């Protein structure tokens, strides 16, 4: 970097750093105030800790579940199901989008079905899937997959169709086959759309897995939430929700890293 920076530029840089620091401080303060107020309210009896729980009660619950090792099993079950639903939904959705892109006739035929399926709340299908597939992890994954697959199809198809005609013509002028056009031009050009789909899908996959776990499973954070509310252990419910928040943040961050890697992909 240039060492001979003007005073004006130095104070400009300092301003940027200061602002960044202030934002971070405020973010932490909000979190601290939220938990602090919650704890104080429970302690002073403004809210009923048995119903609303409190940070210290959640912490004790966490300790006991860590000690028994139980919590790791539940986190693992939910996380692995989310990843499975997310990956399968993205791959399947992209494959269907490729077929629809390659075949104009199929695309026209299937369009109304896609539109309806997209508008349908997929969680309504969860009970049917459980009847068909049984009371197991497979049913949970399929529920998650169903929710993310349609959005992926529509997103990727739009991306594929928006690739400039001349770019395709260029590949064709070299004698490219349809598959080569897809592999060398259309798919790489749609990578930003794929990343967008990933971002949406991770959230949708969470919805699918939690709904699935509400309905079927004997493990997972969704199960803990339902189970805890049934036996009136609100500490367990609140703790599970907190862990879900952390898990969601971790997954989102992972996708942000992928996105950064492809930052210079688009024009």
């Amino acid at each position, binding site marked *: 970097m240039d060492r001979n920076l003007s005073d004006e530029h130095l104070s400009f840089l300092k301003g940027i750093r200061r602002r960044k620091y202030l934002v971070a401080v405020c973010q932490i303060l909000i979190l601290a105030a939220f938990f602090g107020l919650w704890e104080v309210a429970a302690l002073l009896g403004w809210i009923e800790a048995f119903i609303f729980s409190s940070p210290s009660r959640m912490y004790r619950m966490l300790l006991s579940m860590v000690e028994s090792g139980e919590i790791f099993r539940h986190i693992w079950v939910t996380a692995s199901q989310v990843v499975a639903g997310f990956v399968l939904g993205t791959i399947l959705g992209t494959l269907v989008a490729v077929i629809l892109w390659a075949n104009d006739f199929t695309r026209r035929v299937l369009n109304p079905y896609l539109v309806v399926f997209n508008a349908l709340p997929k969680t309504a299908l969860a009970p049917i899937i459980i009847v068909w597939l049984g009371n197991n992890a497979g049913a949970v994954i399929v529920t998650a997959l169903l929710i993310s697959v349609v959005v992926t199809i529509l997103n990727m198809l739009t991306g594929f169709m928006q690739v*400039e005609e*001349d*770019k395709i*013509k*260029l*590949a*064709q*002028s*070299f*004698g*490219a086959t349809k598959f*080569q056009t897809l592999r*060398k*031009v259309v798919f*790489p*050009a749609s*990578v930003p759309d794929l990343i967008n789909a990933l971002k949406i899908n991770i959230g949708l996959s969470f919805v699918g897995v939690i709904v699935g776990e509400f309905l079927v499973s004997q493990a997972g954070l969704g199960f803990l939430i339902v189970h805890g509310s049934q036996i009136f252990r609100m500490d367990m419910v609140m703790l599970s929700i907190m862990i879900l928040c952390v898990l969601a943040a971790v997954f989102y961050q992972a996708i942000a890293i992928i996105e950064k890697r492809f930052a*210079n*992909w*688009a*024009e």
Partner: protein
Amino acid sequence: MDAIVKLRNLSKSYHSKEGEISAISHVDLEVAAGEFVSIVGPSGCGKSTLLSIISGLIPPSEGEVFVNGQIGYMFQKDHLFPWRTILSNALLGLEIQKKMGRENVAYAHELLEKYGLGDFKKHRPQELSGGMRQRAALIRTLATRPQILLLDEPFSALDYQTRLTVSDEIGGILSAEEVTAILVTHDIAESIALSDRVIVLTQRPCSVRNIHKIDIDRGAARRNSPKFSEYFDRIWKELREDG
């Protein structure tokens, strides 16, 4: 010299629900090997369609096309892929044609070096100027060793100054590499500066209105020749009468 491209009584119509639009009507044209031919015409006439038909990307409605050699295509925009480096962009055609042998790859390297992109092989297209990008796009096509190059207004996306330099540069490269070129443009000066013959088309449905043989020495000085403006005036008049 033998004709490398021959169009006989060529017509093309487009069909839509609203009816039939005739884009090209009975065009006859011969281009000799090594020749540089420009096609000018009123905007919206079927100039680009003509190139697409020559390249085989779309079939004619009527008439015959003879092409004796491999075709390369250059577009208005360079269409370099931002996810590829300049080198790997230049290799795209070879990759698609599965001709990534050592000799061909070396040839692509050689072209990049020869035309001033040697230091930019590892760069992304976003890091290059418009003129350099257009040169890289040309090398991408030349790497597949086409005998005939179709240029579809390849300079029109560039600003005026870059355009003058780049069109002279590319004209030079093409005559050095002895490639037959067919250039579609709406820039009369460009067509006179670059070609052996200028073909003036009529309003849609387009047919050949006139052919001008450009009888001035090739090179950058061409634009300064007194004959240059004579050609310009004649072609401009023909286009205006038609428009």
